[in-house]
């Protein structure tokens, strides 16, 4: 039973990762790649201040995006699971949430650019309302724009697993809590959130890995003015520096695994699977 799956995973997952690890020790000149065992790529990576700044930036994006997607995602899921009473409406509203995902990721992201621009819809509306006197420049090509796009792109990845866990919560537990005299806030904090943790964790893993691995959103929404690890890798690839790109990829992979490992310490998601 497991053999075919193992074979597929070996070939399409394990083997490529091993290749990346192997190449990360190779040497590169501008136009050739030389198989070798050399730590120079890692030495350069850990020796450069840029690496630390860029990793910090990547974590910053991941953390802020996570906080917003969690807040919005939890609220939406809570509304769907506990306020919408009929199953039909739950399904209808849930499908409504997915409508934006019928178009490509990149199109959804790029469509923000004319909206947020100096002469874009957002600025002209605010100007006509008299809220501002001159266009806000920080709306576009800024960290604000990057985070906005991330939150927009990835909130659904939070909604789905949280909604899924919430639907499995036995309603009688909530009634029991109410009978025992718990307030709404107490029910939320002591009953619903603990029982939703596995869903929150799955959503967190989705969002954190997606944001940490991204390069195109950061490039477009920051107008190439900010960098994250993905952009370092893509720049290296463009300049044929595959070994150096591989080394960065390996470090990123380990970092993400470490982050996920720490998160799994707190919550057992096996219950969900």
């Amino acid at each position, binding site marked *: 039973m497991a053999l075919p799956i193992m074979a597929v995973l070996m070939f399409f997952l394990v083997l490529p990762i091993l290749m990346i690890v192997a190449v990360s020790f190779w040497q590169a000149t501008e136009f050739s790649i030389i198989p070798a065992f050399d730590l120079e790529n890692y030495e350069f990576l850990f020796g450069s201040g840029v690496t630390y700044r860029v990793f910090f930036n990547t974590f910053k994006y991941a953390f802020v995006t996570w906080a917003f997607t969690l807040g919005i995602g939890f609220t939406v899921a809570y509304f769907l699971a506990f306020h919408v009473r009929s199953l039909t409406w739950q399904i209808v509203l849930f499908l409504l949430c997915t409508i934006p995902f019928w178009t490509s990721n990149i199109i959804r992201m790029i469509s923000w650019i004319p909206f947020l621009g100096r002469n874009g819809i957002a600025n002209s509306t605010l100007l006509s309302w008299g809220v501002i006197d001159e266009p806000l420049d920080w709306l576009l090509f800024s960290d604000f724009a990057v985070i906005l796009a991330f939150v927009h792109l990835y909130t659904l990845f939070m909604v789905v697993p949280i909604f899924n866990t919430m639907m499995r919560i036995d309603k009688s537990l909530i009634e029991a809590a109410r009978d025992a005299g718990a307030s709404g806030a107490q029910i939320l904090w002591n009953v619903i959130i603990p029982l939703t943790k596995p869903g929150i964790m799955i959503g967190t893993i989705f969002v954190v890995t997606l944001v940490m691995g991204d390069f195109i959103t950061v490039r477009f929404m920051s107008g*190439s003015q900010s960098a994250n690890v993905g952009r370092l890798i893509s720049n290296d690839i463009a300049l044929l520096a595959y070994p150096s790109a591989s080394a960065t990829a390996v470090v990123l992979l380990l970092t993400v695994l470490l982050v996920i490992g720490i998160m799994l310490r707190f919550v057992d998601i096996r219950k969900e699977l």
Partner: protein
Amino acid sequence: MTKVSRRSILKGGAAFAAGTTLGAPMIWAQNIKDVTLRQFGTGVSNLNDVANKVKEDLGFTLEMTALDSDSVTQRAATQPNSFDIADIEYWICKKVWPTGNLQAMDTSRITNYDKIVGIFRNGKLTPESTIAQGTAPHTVGFVEGPEGNSFVDNESGWMTLIPTIYNADTLGIRPDLINRPISNWSELLNPEFKGKASILDISSIGIMDMAMVVESMGEYTYPDKGNMTREEIDLTMAIFTEAKQNGQFRAFWKSFDESVNLMASGEVVIQSMWSPAITAVKSKGVPCVYQPLEEGYRSWGGGIGLSAALSGLERDAAYEYINWYLDGWVGGYLMRQGYYSAVPETSKNFMSENEWGYWFEGKAATDTITSPTGDALAQAGEVRDGGSFQDRMGAVACWNAVMDENQYMVRKWNEFIAA
């Protein structure tokens, strides 16, 4: 299999042709229709219209692949068997030639060789011209012989690339949003345009634009902008990093479309730009000027080179193609887009008097000027930004280049982006 048999026939044909020169063209005409040449290069000159015209005029098939400049370099350097003809820039040639993936061309087989503009032969547009800094095309244009590996400084008769297309680049501006004359590169970092400037995020070209700005600001005069030392790179980057942190730049652009959108939407009023991008902005009805500047232009040039693996009939076809390329039809096509052709005088035959006057001689248009695809680019009475061919190509301050310290520069560039 069919290829092998065709080649063996062809070898017989070549031997026969060597014996009797009269017989050659006949054999050639029969076989040439089977030939397929694979060309790759940047989107600038890899045009399907050219491939169609080749089929029509010469009978053989030209397969075009358009890639971005990084991928072009990569393919020329690492996949010699994937192409027959490489359409690359001169600075790429400097790096790719030593790999031995290209072969030199015999200039005696190039009909219009003597008419090729001086820039590509001895480096001088006119006998009085001074040679600009950077990787000037003639410095990487010739090698000592058919197997030559190193560049020579004279017209040796063996050419690395046949020049196809070139131009002089400068800053693009939005005259309606600036409302005053702009005449120096230093304006890019003028605080007046804080948050409204942009520079391209392609390190090898961006660094040259930076150097033009730094010189214009009077901060430093480079012995050779095209080959900076580490200290010079640090100094240049420091000036731009400071400007970036002060919010001078709205964005950086990497693709042609991005530069057009930044300018057309008014996000940016002054930025490094490419000539067809200006045309694209104008065709949206937005005023945009390719501003000539006192310090001169940053120029670039491309050419076609033959794969080292090319031989026999395929190579003959490639020479045929090159001769056709310089014969004027392509030149006219490219010049009507605002580029220059290597042999302008043959292009003239394929352009109207009005077009030639506007694009090449810098005269006022006598009628509407349209692009090869039919969009109106200029109305009667308008003059090309920067004027005539002599005015523009005569004011080149530096050529796109690749530095000895390229890897160091790229790392510094990454720091600049992350700063």
